[in-house]
């Protein structure tokens, strides 16, 4: 407007007013363009701020696979954010990754959220994150349920074994050591994998390991208050009366280790265990399923002889029932007898005796603390003795047997002594030695000298006799044998097929046959004509059938 006004110098033309008015209209119209631009810009700004989510910082030990501006943050494979920048911490021990989360991922900037880098991993228990080989690593996220906001996180170095909100429950196991277990080791129930180990840590006093395991729903209902957990790692080889047995949960556990659980046989509590129940991790299935041992008692035994073959962990048996194990084998010195007795310490579990223990306790009575020594006092009075016996003749391994020996000498037993000391008797081998030595003694008493002399004389006599036999008897015998030989030869000749004797016999037999035939004809005739005996032969014609030979025979016969 101003420019057109400035340019309008010629005075002849009028119409200044409409020009001004129209130009005012034009002025307002063209300024719509920047206003629209401004509106667009503002709307972009607003939408940007509206869509911007929280900014968080996650620290990792290594930035392997993470790229600023590219690496995405995913939850259940949905992108919820992106790494914007990455920098090294001041002390260079870790890196800090700045992440811009999406607006709707606000829940991931709260306490309890876990972040980890998903990379391809190959472990004993499987392979994961293969897809990241091509797409590059990403950061996995798992939200907690806290509402408390948090912007600084420490990233996990390994993916968490259990994602938040997964159905199932956690339980705690106590073990002496970790063994070959690791985070992610499987948990089996009846050889089906139902869970895994999610974490482990040393107990505060350092005397054991606490493992946390997660049983996936709905199988977590099988964990009852009385369930027993045992370490299913490796192969369990046992040689029993029915042959060699190999037992393992699965091939994977042989390498990677695992935990199995089951309810003990027999009556037990079937109530489902609450979350975070604590259990003991047994070393093998047999011990796990055995009835509970109760409190162990320490006993000490003093053996006066060598215990070669007795190792720590050797069983202690009471009348054949395994009630405990040896925990120490130490040498002692007795200055009075200048001998070296062996002191064996053992833990016994009185509860393994079952009913016997209950009845004994009832019989003895009294308070629980001194119950065990008093029971032992009673048993020792009845002849209970400890004995080192050979459990395996091949390897010579010994075990401690607590047995009643009716012939045992009375010993003093102090029930108040700590630890309880069980009297001992010499072991099997010592008995054997004694017996062998007594046998040797008896053998020594045999008069081998006189026996030898007598035997010598007898042998001389025998020698003379034999000479005689050789000189006189043998030539005679030879002659006799020759005679026998000859006789046998003659007999042979006589009996041979073409000998005259044979032929004679054949002829005689033939003759005999003929004779018999004529006798038959005669008797037939007599049968028909009995009167012939008195009157002689009739004049009737001879029968047609009769042959001349039979007539002849009849004539010859009378």
């Amino acid at each position, binding site marked *: 407007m101003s420019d057109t006004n400035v340019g309008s110098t010629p005075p002849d033309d009028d119409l200044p007013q409409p020009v001004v008015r129209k130009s005012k209209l034009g002025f307002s119209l063209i300024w719509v363009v*920047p206003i629209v631009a401004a509106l667009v810009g503002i709307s972009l700004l607003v939408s940007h701020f509206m869509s911007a989510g929280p900014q968080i910082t996650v620290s990792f030990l290594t930035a392997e696979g993470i790229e600023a501006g590219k690496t995405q943050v995913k939850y259940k494979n949905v992108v919820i954010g992106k790494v914007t920048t990455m920098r090294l911490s001041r002390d260079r021990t870790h890196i800090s990754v700045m992440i811009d989360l999406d607006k709707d991922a606000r829940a991931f900037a709260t306490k309890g959220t876990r972040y980890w880098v998903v990379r391809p991993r190959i472990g004993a228990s499987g392979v994961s994150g293969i897809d990241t080989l091509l797409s590059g690593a990403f950061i996995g996220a798992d939200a907690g349920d806290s509402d408390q906001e948090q912007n600084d996180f420490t990233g996990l170095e390994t993916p968490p074994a259990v994602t938040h909100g997964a159905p199932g429950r956690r339980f705690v196991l106590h073990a002496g050591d970790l063994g070959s277990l690791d985070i992610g080791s499987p948990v089996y129930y009846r050889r089906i994998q139902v869970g895994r180990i999610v974490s482990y840590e040393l107990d505060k006093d350092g005397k054991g390991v606490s493992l946390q395991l997660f049983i996936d729903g709905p199988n977590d209902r099988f964990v009852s208050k009385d369930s027993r957990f045992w370490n299913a790692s490796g192969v369990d080889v046992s040689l029993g009366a029915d042959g060699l047995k190999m037992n393992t949960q699965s091939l994977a556990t042989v390498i990677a280790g695992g935990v199995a659980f089951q309810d003990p046989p027999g009556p037990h509590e079937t109530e489902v265990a609450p979350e975070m129940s604590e259990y003991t991790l047994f070393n093998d299935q047999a011990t796990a399923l055995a009835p509970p041992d109760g409190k162990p008692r320490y006993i000490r035994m003093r053996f006066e002889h060598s215990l070669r073959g007795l190792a720590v962990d050797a069983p202690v048996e009471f009348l054949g029932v395994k009630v405990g194990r040896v925990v120490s084998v130490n040498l002692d010195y007795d200055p009075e007898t200048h001998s070296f007795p062996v002191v064996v310490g053992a833990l016994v579990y009185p509860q393994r005796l079952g009913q016997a223990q209950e009845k004994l306790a009832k019989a003895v009575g009294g308070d629980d603390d001194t119950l065990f020594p008093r029971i032992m006092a009673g048993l020792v009075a009845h002849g209970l003795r400890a004995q080192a016996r050979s459990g395996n003749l091949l390897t010579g391994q010994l075990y401690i047997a607590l047995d009643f020996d009716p012939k045992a000498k009375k010993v003093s037993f102090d029930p108040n002594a700590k630890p309880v000391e069980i009297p001992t008797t010499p072991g099997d081998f010592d008995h054997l030695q004694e017996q062998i030595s007594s046998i040797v003694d008896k053998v020594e008493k045999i008069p081998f000298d006189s026996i030898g002399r007598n035997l010598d004389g007898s042998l001389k006599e025998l020698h003379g006799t034999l000479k005689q036999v050789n000189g006189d008897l043998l030539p005679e015998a030879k002659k006799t044998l020759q005679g026998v030989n000859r006789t046998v030869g003659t007999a042979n000749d006589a009996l041979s097929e073409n000998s005259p004797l044979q032929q004679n016999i054949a002829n005689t037999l033939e003759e005999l046959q003929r004779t018999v035939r004529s006798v038959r004809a005669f008797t037939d005739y007599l049968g028909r004509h009995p009167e012939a005996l008195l009157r002689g032969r009739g004049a009737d014609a001879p029968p047609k059938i009769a042959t001349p030979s039979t007539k002849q025979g009849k004539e010859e016969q009378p």
Partner: protein
Amino acid sequence: MSTPPRAIDLGMMACHVCRQVTAYTEDRHAHCPRCGNTLHARKHASVSRAWALLVAAAIFYIPANVFPIMRTQSISSKDDNTILSGIMELWRAGSPGLAVIVFTASIIVPVLKFLIMGFLLVTVQRSSGMVARQRARLYRFVELVGYWSMLDVFVVAILSALVHFKILSRVEPLPGVVYFGIVVVLTMLSAMSFDPRLIWDNRKSQ
């Protein structure tokens, strides 16, 4: 100061299309008697239009630079690049020549246009007769160079049309390039709506 007379001073004006010289009139609805084109001694509302378009362009220049203009996807990576980050990537990737060209076309030229147009408009509004010749030269420079800022837009358009190998690699345009295109168009319109004759109009009043 004696200056050569302007057409207005002589009571004349020319048609922009067929160059027919007619008598001067203030009427905005006057038409050329020969070709029928509208006649005006100076472009109508030239300064305010130029200002409005320039301001709009400046506003759009912000999102054009902030938003990514192009997404390069390959089998293992996905890259969103703004104009500046693209230039830096080119420089780092070992093609500084290309980086310089893109930088000139997408950053230097638009900024120069804003500055020059702003300078021209301010001086015209102030009726300053200073360095009129140089200002006219600047205007010609702006007009000449204006088209080349479209380079970036073309690059993105051509790449996203050509590079389409499914998962192997792909280039996609992102909203930033639209804003950049708007910036370029608006600055060109702004330069067009500016009437360079205004530069000389105020010499008298000085």
